[in-house]
């Protein structure tokens, strides 16, 4: 970092894509914030990507359109990019760089935090084990979200992931505790109509009061997208660890983030990795995802739900692939279910919440939760097999039990999975629906559930 921030350099060697190369720089530091001033006095923000040999490579967040080598000045501010934070950020709407977008002044800051966050001491991490109720049956019942977890949603273009994201943001809550709950919502490269939908949806449901929105629109400079998840997570960390809140961070769409990263990498002429994404995509994504968690001695938690749309619904694409290595499970939206008109179209057979087992059961949700969930998984998998078989031999060739499984499959999709976009189901309702659907099968088919639970909950 410069010993004294504020030195302005006027020798611009080159402007290349989103990068500005400044000459004659002596004291700049990696990640240092830079103010670029155009001929017309317009100011743009950037950060130092590389320094050395008297040159500094600056990544301009707002793009370099309209900049020229002569007449452009770069002021090295002497500090990294910071986000002003305080309790006042709740209920506010910001742009992708953390500037107010709701016509109100900057929030009065309690402190200014480095947007890159402070790495969590692994020894101080606490294992996530408390339930977050999203009010969405398939998530609460079968892919339970746990406080401090990072559970991504893998979707495809045109599917209802944004509607699901908004529903979760509106409905999510922690049950059985008086601890405060907040939602930080970061929209990365979304259309204006989607951004408006998110804002209106939170406003009209009264959930905006406990939410913070960061909106980077599709027509905002792509480079800004590198910053959006980071400012959002900085606010989330402040709310969680300084104010003791349980914070759910929803990041949509991380594919746009990765594409911005690819753009910078290409401009820097780095050796491309898979599909042109930089070789450090995994490391970079982990700097975002690993900011979820709980810390020993701190009351709050940061839970992450990144949403990414898989190009061509390809789950082996580098973005979902690398995301899956870092996160603790995934919720996969299925194209077939979406086409059938099922909402939310969650393909449970491809989805998994790895740490669900620690957040459910007696004292957290209900004693039979794990078993009824396993039974539903098992039965739905069998129903899919039976459907495939019926496609070959016809319904007439199926046994009585097979037909029961087919009925179960239909009921599972139509009554348990399908939910209105404003329907907020409690965990009791969700578990009740799971028992309703499984009761399409004869008792002797329920091999994953203890007899005492069958006695108690099976619907004759």
């Amino acid at each position, binding site marked *: 970092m410069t010993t*004294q921030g504020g030195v302005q350099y*006027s020798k611009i060697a080159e402007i290349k894509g989103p990068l500005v190369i400044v*000459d*004659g720089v002596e004291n700049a530091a990696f990640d240092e914030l830079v103010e670029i001033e155009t001929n017309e006095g317009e100011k743009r923000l950037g950060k130092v990507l590389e320094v050395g040999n008297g040159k500094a490579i600056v990544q301009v967040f707002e793009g370099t359109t309209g900049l020229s080598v002569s007449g452009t000045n770069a002021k090295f501010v002497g500090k990294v990019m910071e986000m002003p934070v305080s309790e*006042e950020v709740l209920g506010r709407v910001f742009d992708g760089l953390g500037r107010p977008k709701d016509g109100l*002044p900057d929030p*009065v800051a309690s402190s200014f935090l480095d947007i890159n966050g402070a790495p969590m001491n692994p020894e101080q991490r606490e294992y996530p084990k408390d339930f977050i109720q999203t009010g969405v049956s398939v998530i609460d019942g079968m892919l339970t979200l746990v406080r401090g977890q990072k559970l991504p949603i893998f979707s495809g273009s045109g599917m209802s992931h944004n509607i699901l994201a908004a529903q979760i943001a509106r409905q999510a809550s922690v049950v059985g505790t008086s601890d405060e709950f907040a939602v930080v919502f970061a929209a990365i490269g979304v259309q204006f109509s989607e951004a408006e939908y998110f804002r209106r949806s939170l406003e009209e449901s009264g959930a*905006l*009061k406990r939410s913070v929105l960061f909106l980077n629109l599709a027509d905002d400079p792509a480079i800004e997208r590198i910053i959006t998840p980071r400012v959002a997570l900085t606010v989330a960390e402040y709310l969680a660890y300084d104010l003791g809140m349980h914070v759910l961070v929803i990041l949509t769409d991380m594919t746009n983030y990765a594409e911005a990263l690819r753009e910078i990498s290409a401009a820097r002429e780095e050796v491309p990795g898979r599909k042109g994404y930089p070789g450090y995509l995994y490391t970079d994504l982990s700097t975002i995802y690993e900011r979820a968690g709980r810390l020993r001695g701190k009351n709050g938690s940061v839970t992450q739900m990144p949403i990414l749309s898989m190009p061509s619904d390809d789950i082996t694409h580098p973005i979902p692939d690398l995301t899956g290595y870092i996160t603790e499970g995934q919720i996969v939206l299925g194209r077939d279910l979406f086409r059938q008109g099922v909402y939310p179209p969650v393909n449970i057979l491809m989805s998994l919440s790895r740490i669900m087992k620690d957040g459910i059961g007696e004292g957290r949700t209900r004693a039979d939760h794990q078993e009824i969930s396993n039974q539903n998984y098992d039965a739905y998998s069998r129903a899919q097999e039976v459907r495939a078989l019926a496609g070959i031999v016809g319904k007439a060739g199926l046994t009585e039990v097979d037909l029961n499984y087919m009925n179960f499959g239909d009921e599972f999709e139509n009554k348990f999975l399908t939910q209105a976009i404003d329907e907020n189901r409690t965990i009791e309702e969700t578990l009740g629906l799971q028992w309703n659907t499984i009761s399409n099968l004869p008792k002797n088919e329920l091999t994953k559930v203890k007899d005492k639970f069958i006695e108690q909950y099976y619907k004759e």
Partner: protein
Amino acid sequence: MPSLAELSLEKTVDQVLEKNRSQLLESLKLSFSESQQQLSDSLPELEKEYERILSEGQKEAEKIEKQIVGSSDLEVRNKALLLVEEHTSMVFEKAKEQIKNTKRDSNYSNLISTLLTEATEALGTSEITVFTNSTDKDIVQSAISKISGADLSSEQIDCMGGVKITSKDGSMTFDNTIDARFERMKPLIRKNIAAKFSLGN
């Protein structure tokens, strides 16, 4: 006198009528008991439906309450924010006015020397051109006489006070005017002013 055949027909008709009557009565009894059964069966259903409507109504009411309370809370908070901002700006303007009219005494001369030293250190060279406003021209002139290689520009800048320096090759500039420092410190000062209005920490 009716014939035997007529009597026999009458008897058969009576028998049929009697049989139909008893069947009808039986059927009526059955229907009655069935409808009673249905009525008693539908009672729990009715109660369930009643409970469902009540709970849905309750949920809806809670949703609306949340909406109303949430938006009113936000509205109040936002109004307070705007008010504080307005007053903070007034405080800033007042402060700027006072700074502008500060007496150019020995303390101020020391301040100019400090600002010059700071700026020179930031650029890492003393081969500099110094810019200032018309009021501070003389004080700055005497301060730069101690720095070899420093010249005072004849061009004057519009500021409250302080200096702005540029390396002689024009590649580096450091703005150490009071205006620039004010801008740099603004978020922190703003926080302190807001705290006086009991907002922020």
